[in-house]
């Protein structure tokens, strides 16, 4: 049987066994609706409250500042539209390397008459706080910058951006889907007013996420109905999911520091291994300010999807930076914003390591990577005629 190695933890992670164990009673045992006042409902309510406390503690927030949602995409929509709609009109600032959940939300706001500035990044994928400062206008109503980029792993200078927004009383939304539970931070120290996070990136279940909303931040709901989540997000709470997210966060609190060190070492082993054995390879993203387990590898003159397929056939799961959809190539908007030349950007592959990744896995990936690239390049590369 082929060895199987999963290096796509930025896409999703397996549910931690302790998380699953804590969730299971809430499917068919304690199945009450948290809004019900009877004992069945109170049981579910207590579980949701505990999860909220765990998340709040982890973020340096209070439980009342945490709203649970259905996913990172909803959290980003809620955070940005919630801030924008509460102000009615005006100008927002975001960056060119955001997740599509942020970029397309901002584009939708443009369609509604809001103005948006998309600031660029440097060659390492980093936003310059000074560019954010220059983009500020008298009518700027919100700034949304991601904490770390899912594709290249660069961590943005949120603290410096937070100082700018706080000085001017402009709310700052941060998409922290890739950083919560991976690197330590405190929402207040960073000057964050709204922060999106998700469960399934940190060994919790899919379909549950959250938004931190700093107390007294003006924000409107984007989903209407019952009085759930202090009237901020209507809809019966996903109790098992929320329980799982709370447990996942609790586990990250105790495992995060040690795992960050272990993953950084494994990531270095991976990138040094690939660079040592495969010619014309380079790394993208910031060399130091980066997520511990994320490696973005650019392979010149190899098409990333063929590389992903070749690795898949060896039992290895990684993701392609550029995607070909119905014959239209979309080189990653992140690499394009970073100014990576097309012949490199087309061969971008992201390896994201996680709890289960071992040194043996990494060595197998290095060996397979070399074999697949050699094969793709040997006979197939189109040279000069």
């Amino acid at each position: 049987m082929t060895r199987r190695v999963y290096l796509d933890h930025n896409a999703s992670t397996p549910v931690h066994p302790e998380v699953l164990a804590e969730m299971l009673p809430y499917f068919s045992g304690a199945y009450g609706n948290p809004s019900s006042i009877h004992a069945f409902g109170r049981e579910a309510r207590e579980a949701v409250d505990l999860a909220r406390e765990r998340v709040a503690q982890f973020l340096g927030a209070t439980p009342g500042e945490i709203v649970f949602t259905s996913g990172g995409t909803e959290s980003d929509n809620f955070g940005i539209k919630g801030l924008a709609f509460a102000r009615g009109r005006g100008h927002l600032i975001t960056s060119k390397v955001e997740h599509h959940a942020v970029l397309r939300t901002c584009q939708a706001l443009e369609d509604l008459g809001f103005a948006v500035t998309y600031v660029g990044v440097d060659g390492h994928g980093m936003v310059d706080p000074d560019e954010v400062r220059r983009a500020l206008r008298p009518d700027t109503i919100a700034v949304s910058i991601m904490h770390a980029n899912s594709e290249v792993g660069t961590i943005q200078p949120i603290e410096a951006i937070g100082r700018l927004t706080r000085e001017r009383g402009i709310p700052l939304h941060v998409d922290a889907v890739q950083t919560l539970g991976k690197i330590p931070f405190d929402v207040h120290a960073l000057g964050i007013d709204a922060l999106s996070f998700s469960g399934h990136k940190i060994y919790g279940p899919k379909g549950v996420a959250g938004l931190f909303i700093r107390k007294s931040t003006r924000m409107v709901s984007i989903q209407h109905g019952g009085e759930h989540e202090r009237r901020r997000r209507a809809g019966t709470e996903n109790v098992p999911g929320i329980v799982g997210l709370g447990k996942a966060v609790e586990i990250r609190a105790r495992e995060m520091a040690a795992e960050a060190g272990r993953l950084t070492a494994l990531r270095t082993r991976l990138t040094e291994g690939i660079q040592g054995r495969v010619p014309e390879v380079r790394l993208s993203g910031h060399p130091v300010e980066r997520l511990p387990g994320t490696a973005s590898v650019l392979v010149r003159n190899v098409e990333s999807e063929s590389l992903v397929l070749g690795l898949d056939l060896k039992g290895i799961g990684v993701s392609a930076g550029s995607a070909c959809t119905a014959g239209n190539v979309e080189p990653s908007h992140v690499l394009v914003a970073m100014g990576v030349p097309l012949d490199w950007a087309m061969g971008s592959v992201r390896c994201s390591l996680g709890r289960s990744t071992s040194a043996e896995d990494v060595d197998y990936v290095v060996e397979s990577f070399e074999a697949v690239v050699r094969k793709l390049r040997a006979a197939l590369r189109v040279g000069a005629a």
Partner: protein
Amino acid sequence: MRYSATVVDHFLNPRNAGMMQAPDGVGEDEYEGCGDLTRFFLRVRDGRAVEVRFQTYGCGPTIAAASVASELARGRAVEELSQVKAGEIEAALDGLPDDRRHAAEVAAAALRAAALAARARKG
């Protein structure tokens, strides 16, 4: 796996890949917007392709389509190859997902171009 066993086989073991010295016809095609590029080399004797080689840059199905096209072209009349259709290549691959049909189109267009070049040279 979203690809047929034939696609995977040709991707992993491409037939006739590589350049050709002094070919009688060379033709290439690039799929607009996608960057996939395939080039065929033909050696022609008595109006037939006796040797076919290719180079390609593209996703897995593009490599597989070029490989399978090189097999089905060998021994065929250049005249016939100048009209080869993507459907024949796709069928030889036991099908392609809808969003990868262009792989067969690139291979067919490159093969037709090589056949036309060989015919022009002859003429």
